[in-house]
């Protein structure tokens, strides 16, 4: 499959003309004059008047290089320009461009996203934040991507840190942090209407309006709706749909030269169809293949106060409330979260750049027991206290920067923990940098570890008893622990080629294990039943190591080529005394060994941009998902100042392909279909 990728190296003209049907030929004709002018030099900008210069839109590639150039971590920043060009219609698809990320689509609305292994629908070692608000679900310990449908047009950037970030970001930032930052309202004044359609790709319809709020502030309001066309189940049964509406606002107000306040609120509601095989009744035992709708809704409100104490010190106080409800016929839950967070950033002398902060989070949930999933207790309040401090010390100014920090955190399940980190950035010269890091991170237990009971299978047992294959909670949940050793290089060769590489060695302990035990008669479920128990424990440990590398090569002012490659090996083992035959084997086999990607962006004349990306993902051995190459391509046309048109195709190489199957998914996986979409965004 991978052998087809070199096609991309040919010019787009030949590629289209050779391979596409005549209906597409017109595009090739459009591209033809463009490829000729690739080498054309830009005009002398100094000959343009100031007024003209002020009307030029600029790319801020350097902003990324700037931000990244000092960080002693494997950071990748997806800029708003990348978002616009990629043609991605949702956040998981955007994350595919990050080397080393595992992104697999399960069905039209569900994704498994992770970094450095352990991928699954409920992959629980990745922390995701939207403007500082965590969207990690504290019951299932994971992120539900079906409800994280932000307006991509309003995202300023997505910072992705692979590897542990717990010292600053907090627990669950074990294998990575995804930090989504939306644009300030000062940047989104005016209106935007976005509409589109796709064959099986889901194109959100969006509207946004922003303006001034008093003399010193600005606001924006937005609304979004999406409705999927239908995807196809593996066995060809009923298709599943995805519908969602979302709306909200953001305000930014400058109170004085020193103070500013940001507030954000949003509400959403949606449903995702799913196919689930689950028990519908215990007495008598009955299993059914259910075609269900998972419904979810929520709202949140956040306020952030930024204060500048002096030129060398800033503080931030943030509060948010978040309510999420989610459920189908086989489970139901509602969670209220209150979070308060304080941070101070201070430069002390010439050598110290200090950040410290403290946080408190209260989660209160209510779950509804069903024959399939129940929690004991059904309602629970959990609290997290945390404190962190981090100092960046200029050992030799602008040459050697040492970053040391630690976080103290206390949670109700596993008590207190310390998550230290130390990182060193070493600038060899203005263009080359090496970095090293040793850090420790924890995943704190969630309700799905400590309190959950899942009945996977029920059937008539001996003597008229109901036999249940059931997952029992971990009686003594522990933090899953990671110690990571990382190193990386970042550099540029000339002004056109930049390279970024990272290697890591991770040591894990207390990962979740599942052991089956001897059947016994259980009497606490109302009527006696024969339970075939599966005990959750913390009995897996192991290592992983890998490499991630990518380059950004501006071949000409118009043509950029970005290749990337990553490699991962995991060795997981049972701890002494643990008899778990599947978890370690399945987890390591579900992590693709090799991944590679190639993205090409060609800025053409008259506001046209052509963007193509090819992603190769190695097979997942144990779960029989073959390797696949995903090819997406699209053209953006900025038709004047106000209109942006996009057409594109996704998964072009195969009519259908499967991206994921694994132990960690609650729905039956689907085949992801080839798809085409059109999209228009009009600003006014």
């Amino acid at each position, binding site marked *: 499959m991978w052998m*087809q990728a070199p096609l991309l190296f040919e010019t787009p003209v030949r590629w289209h003309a050779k*391979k596409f*049907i005549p*209906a*597409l030929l*017109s*595009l090739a*004709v*459009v591209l033809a*004059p463009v490829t000729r*002018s690739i080498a054309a030099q*830009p*005009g002398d*900008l*100094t000959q343009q008047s*100031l*007024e003209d*210069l*002020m*009307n*030029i*839109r*600029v*790319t*801020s*590639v*350097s902003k990324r290089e*700037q931000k990244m*150039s*000092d960080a002693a971590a494997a950071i990748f920043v997806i800029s708003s320009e990348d978002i616009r060009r990629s043609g991605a219609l949702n956040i998981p698809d955007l994350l595919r461009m990050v080397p080393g990320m595992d992104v697999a689509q399960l069905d039209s609305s569900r994704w498994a996203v992770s970094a450095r292994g352990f991928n699954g629908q409920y992959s629980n070692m990745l922390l995701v934040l939207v403007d500082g608000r965590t969207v990690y679900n504290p019951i299932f310990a994971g992120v539900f991507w079906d409800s994280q449908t932000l307006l991509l047009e309003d995202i300023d950037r997505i910072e992705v840190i692979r590897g542990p970030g717990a010292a600053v970001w907090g627990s669950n930032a074990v294998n990575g942090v995804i930090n989504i930052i939306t644009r300030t309202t000062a*940047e989104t004044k005016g209106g935007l209407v976005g509409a589109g*359609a*796709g*064959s*099986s790709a889901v194109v959100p319809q969006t509207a946004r309006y922003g303006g001034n709020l008093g003399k010193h502030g600005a606001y924006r309001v937005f609304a979004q709706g999406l409705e999927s*066309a239908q995807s196809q189940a593996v066995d060809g049964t009923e298709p599943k749909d995805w519908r969602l509406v979302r709306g909200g606002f953001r305000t930014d107000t400058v109170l004085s*030269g020193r103070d500013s306040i940001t507030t954000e609120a949003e509400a959403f509601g949606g449903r995702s169809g799913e196919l689930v095989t689950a028990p519908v009744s215990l007495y008598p035992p009955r299993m059914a293949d259910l075609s269900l709708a998972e419904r979810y809704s929520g709202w949140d409100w956040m306020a952030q106060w930024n204060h*500048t104490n002096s*030129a*060398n010190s800033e503080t931030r106080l943030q509060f948010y409330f978040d309510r999420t409800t989610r459920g189908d016929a086989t489970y139901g839950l509602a969670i209220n979260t209150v979070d308060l967070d304080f941070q101070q950033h201070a430069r002390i002398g*010439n050598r110290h*750049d200090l950040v410290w902060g403290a946080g408190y989070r209260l989660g209160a949930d209510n779950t509804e027991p069903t024959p399939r999933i129940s929690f004991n207790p059904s309602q629970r309040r959990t609290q997290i206290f945390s404190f962190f401090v981090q100092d960046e010390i*200029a050992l030799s*100014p602008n040459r050697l920067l040492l970053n040391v920090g630690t976080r103290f955190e206390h949670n109700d399940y596993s008590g207190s923990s310390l998550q230290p980190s130390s990182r060193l950035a070493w600038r060899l010269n*203005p263009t080359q940098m090496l970095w090293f890091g040793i850090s420790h991170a924890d995943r704190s237990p969630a309700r799905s570890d400590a309190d959950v009971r899942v009945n996977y299978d029920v059937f008539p047992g001996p003597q008229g008893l109901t036999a249940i294959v059931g997952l029992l909670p971990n009686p003594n949940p522990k933090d899953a622990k990671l110690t990571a050793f990382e190193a990386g290089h970042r550099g540029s060769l000339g*002004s056109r080629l930049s390279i970024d590489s990272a290697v890591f060695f991770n040591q894990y302990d207390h990962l979740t294990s599942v052991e089956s035990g001897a059947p016994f008669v259980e009497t606490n479920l109302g009527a006696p039943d024969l339970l075939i128990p599966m005990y959750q424990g913390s009995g897996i440990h192991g290592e992983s190591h890998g490499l991630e590398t990518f380059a950004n090569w501006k071949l000409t002012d*118009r043509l950029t080529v970005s290749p990337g490659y990553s490699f991962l090996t995991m060795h997981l083992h049972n701890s002494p005394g643990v008899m778990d035959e599947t978890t370690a084997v399945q987890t390591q086999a579900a992590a693709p060994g090799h991944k590679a990607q190639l993205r090409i962006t060609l*800025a053409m*004349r*008259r*506001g046209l941009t052509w963007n193509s990306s090819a992603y190769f993902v190695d097979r997942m051995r144990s779960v029989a998902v073959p390797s696949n190459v995903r090819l997406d391509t699209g053209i953006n*046309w900025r038709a004047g100042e106000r209109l942006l048109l996009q*057409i594109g195709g996704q998964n*072009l*190489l195969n*009519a259908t392909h499967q991206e994921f199957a694994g132990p960690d998914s609650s729905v039956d996986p689907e085949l992801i279909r*080839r*798809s085409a*979409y*059109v999209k228009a965004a009009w600003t006014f």
Partner: protein
Amino acid sequence: MKDDIRQVLRDIGPRIGPVVAIFRILSACLLLFTVFSKPARAQQVPDEYKVKAAFVFHFAQLIQWPVTSGGGAEPIDVCVFSDEPWLPELQSVLDGKSAANRTIRVRVLTESQNPEGCEVLFLGRSQARRQLELLRALHGTPTLTVGETDSFLSEGGIIRFRLSEDRVRFDINLAGAELCHLKISSRLLLLATNVTRTSPER
């Protein structure tokens, strides 16, 4: 491959009638547009720092430095620290250009060098850590300081760039300019988004 594409078109054809229609119309429009429009000058998205460099060129034309012993014929030195990642872009646009009958020379400073005798000092975001210190050292000397961080003007800088909807804008701190004996033309002041009179924090 060919069969695959045929197959997908067959598969999706009936489902996405409107999409195909729009696609065809679009393609036709694009085709017409290409065939019937004259090849215009290449219009592309320039790099942020090339545009900022062009702004600096205009600043050099619209700002008067106090007359020095050289009689005002010596080159205008635009100083930049060597670790700025956009240094090549700046050099490609500015070096050797002439503004107000003076040649512009991009002078690259090493990190330990003092920005003395520079007509313009452009401090990128990567200098934020020592920006205040540099600006204090330049206090009262005839150097036009150009920067990018939010605190640049309050720390004593004179012109700050910022981006608004991907376009370059700038703010001017008039008090800073006066302290440095620089005369800013009214044309430049008119084009600035904000003109402030912040005295540097002491």
